């Protein structure tokens, strides 16, 4: 019979329509504006279609979600910022749209170059969120952020992020990407142990 496929398709849509209302009534008051409601609606068990009521509730972003990159610093014992970046410039080299600009710091007395950046700029209006910088960084110092609320009225004043805007603590990194953080920390420890063993052998 002609048109059976159309009817079958409409039935699927109608089922979704009914299921949304049934689900709304069954979970009255718990479906919207609660964290568990959002989690339930992101799960595969959910029935029907639904809306994410964005400013009030947020969809949990996946761990590997990437937006504008940020620089990681470790908190020292006295609360000082130990920037992980060594100003090697690998990120600036691999960046496809060339949006990273680094100026290496110099020792104020001897004038010798130091292993840290004096200035670090990312032009957000050029960055294409590809994540190459984070992938190629050997020190795990530049990481893709999860914060997407960056809209501004004036791009010339705000959209070139300088080092102060980019620096975020390692605890934040651990919070947004726990799996990657643990993996990289284990890797670094292993490397350090191997180095220590080699030194021990040589001595």
């Amino acid at each position: 019979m002609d048109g059976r496929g159309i009817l079958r398709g409409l039935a699927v849509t109608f089922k979704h329509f009914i299921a949304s209302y049934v689900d709304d009534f069954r979970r009255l008051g718990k479906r919207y504006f609660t964290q568990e409601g959002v989690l339930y609606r992101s799960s595969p068990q959910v029935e029907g279609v639904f809306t994410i009521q964005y400013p009030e509730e947020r969809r949990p972003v996946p761990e590997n979600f990437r937006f504008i990159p940020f620089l990681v610093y470790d908190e020292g014992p006295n609360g000082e910022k130990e920037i992980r970046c060594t100003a090697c410039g690998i990120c600036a080299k691999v960046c496809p749209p060339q949006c990273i600009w680094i100026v290496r710091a110099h020792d104020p007395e001897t004038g010798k170059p130091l292993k840290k950046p004096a200035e670090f700029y990312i032009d957000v209006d050029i960055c294409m969120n590809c994540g190459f910088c984070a992938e190629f960084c050997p020190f795990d110092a530049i990481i893709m952020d999860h914060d997407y609320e960056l809209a501004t009225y004036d791009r010339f004043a705000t959209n070139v992020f300088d080092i102060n805007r980019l620096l975020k603590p390692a605890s934040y990194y651990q919070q947004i990407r726990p799996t990657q953080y643990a993996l990289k920390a284990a890797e670094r420890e292993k490397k350090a142990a191997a180095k220590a063993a080699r030194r021990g052998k040589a001595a």
Partner: protein
Amino acid sequence: MVRREGKDRLEGLQVPGYDIPDEVKGHVVITTLNRLYNWGRRNSIWPMMFGLACCAIEMIATAASRFDLARFGMEVMRPSPRQADVMIVSGTVTKRMMPLIVRLYNQMPLPKYVIAMGACASGGGPFKEGYNVVSGVDKYIPVDVYIPGCPPTPEALLYGLMKLQQKIEKQSLKEVYLQKDEYIPEPVLGPDIMDPRDFPMIREYTMKKLQEMQAQVGESTAEQS
């Protein structure tokens, strides 16, 4: 229902801009015409149905049921610039597209707003130094809100639209409705719109060319009649 907090917060009708005595609070509703009018205006911004590149896909996703622009009163995507309030420039603006965008902008009625969505529209993005891409739509038309990201997620676009709502809320009706509708000269395609460094010169050239063309058209119509 959870109220918007922090940077998402809209001031609403509660802050008319002058002090309300304590004994009147809670009994009488006082607001300014500005606030009331802007409250209506910001809750019915109609965007123009107009997509350029990959950002347009995110714009479509934002308008669809999962994120639902209708919650902000923006569900009516107008295919005509005459009926639109906001132009969402969503995607890479090529030099071939720029005259058309300027023309669409000129055709929009006042008050009009422009959102540059994504890295390409706001600053050229990965194609900043390309031979065929305009590095930032703000070189030609005034932009109200810039949304970084490549592409911005639907939430990021919603956040940008909320920023626009915040902006509209604080505007004064006098300034908005008494402003003159500025005609922006359409860039003419040809040897111009090529080198981004020559943009001021091109603007001048375009203006001259346009006047010449208009004069020519005027002459030909005069001859016909």
